[in-house]
């Protein structure tokens, strides 16, 4: 699955992490964990795997 970042943020925590809402190429939106630094809005991303029911994505 691939798509583009609709919006995202890096949450400041002991171990910072990024959450994003992705506009999926095949329609719909998903709330995901996104690996890597703060994404650009519109940046292309791809699905890695599901961990504990949460979809993880990375830059495509």
């Amino acid at each position, binding site marked *: 699955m691939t798509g583009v970042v609709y919006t995202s943020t890096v949450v*400041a925590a002991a171990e910072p*992490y990024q*959450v994003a*809402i992705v506009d999926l190429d095949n329609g719909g939106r998903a709330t995901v*964990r996104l690996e890597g630094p703060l994404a650009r*809005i519109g940046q292309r991303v791809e699905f890695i795997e599901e961990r504990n*029911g*949460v979809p993880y994505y990375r830059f495509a």
Partner: protein
Amino acid sequence: MKPVSVTGAYQTAFGTFADKGIRGLTVEAIHGALADAKVEPGEVEAFYLGNFAGPSFVGQNHLAPYIAAAAGFAGIPATRFEAACASSGSAFFHAVQAVAAGVYQTVVVAGVEVMTTQTTPVVAEILAAAGDAQTEGAAGVTFPAVFAMIARRHMHQFGTTREQMAAVAVKNHANGTKNPKAHMKKAITIEQALAGKPVADPLTVYDCSLVSDGAAAVVITSNPGAVRVRGIAQASDHVALQDKADITTFRANRLAAAKAYSMAGVSARDILIAELHDCFTIAEIVAMEDLGFCERGQGGPYAISGATCANGERPVNLSGGLKSKGHPVGATGVAQIVALKHFLESRNAPLGLAQNLGGSGATSVVTILERVH
């Protein structure tokens, strides 16, 4: 429908008051409002309570009768309303409907939250439950993260800047210094706000409202009073951010505002004082657009223009807002009504508006109050 007046209003000090207890704080607010209205507990016909998460924060459920009995009106219908941060706005909306319909003549509406009993990570987790637990909660989308994502999208679409968001914080902190009941009576500068500790990009601690304890209460009645509810509406929307077509606006705000304006027979131009739901600085900017105080996308420039400062053309959050007055979640909706009534009277203003947002906009309550001559 009968006209409904707010004849008594009281807010406890907001801050760290967990030692007073959820019941003690609410009873203090209720007795304050009853004294203000010159109404005895025995005259109250129904009790409406707004509370978001008493069971999670303090381990107490069945809160409305628990508090009603202590306030001295056991026996009457007593019900708790939950709508995240709009819990007591929703309680107020439903109470007004009942009085307007003639079901009751005099009722008490209160809101309360005790939050400082829990550590910050636990508070974040309890608040996150106002989002979609399955998609957002599981992925670690905290409430600051929700509003950070809204802010980033707003910045992307409209060119909104961090300075414009910081202007909201600076203004509300300045207003809070004049409110003896405010949680944080501390003025800040734009530079301080911008250099605040990061919370969720682009938000710093100065973009976020406070974790507070506190309660507020009002007496509403179909008897004539000096401050009348001229328009009121509640609306809803999807809970999850991903399910909203556009996250740079809150549809529930627009729906509630349109109905409230229509009921009141006024437009945004007539509103010269407002208490808006600034849970995060971006939320005040979006609310001003949704309510028609400025054009869509222009909330940032409007915020930094000075128009909404205490001496501006349309003061917003003279109380200090959630940012500085504090945000005991379940108390906020009624606390806004208390503040709005106070400023209508003290500033001799004819009309004012309160907007109470639940979660990321799945509930919105908009109230227009009129000072009657």
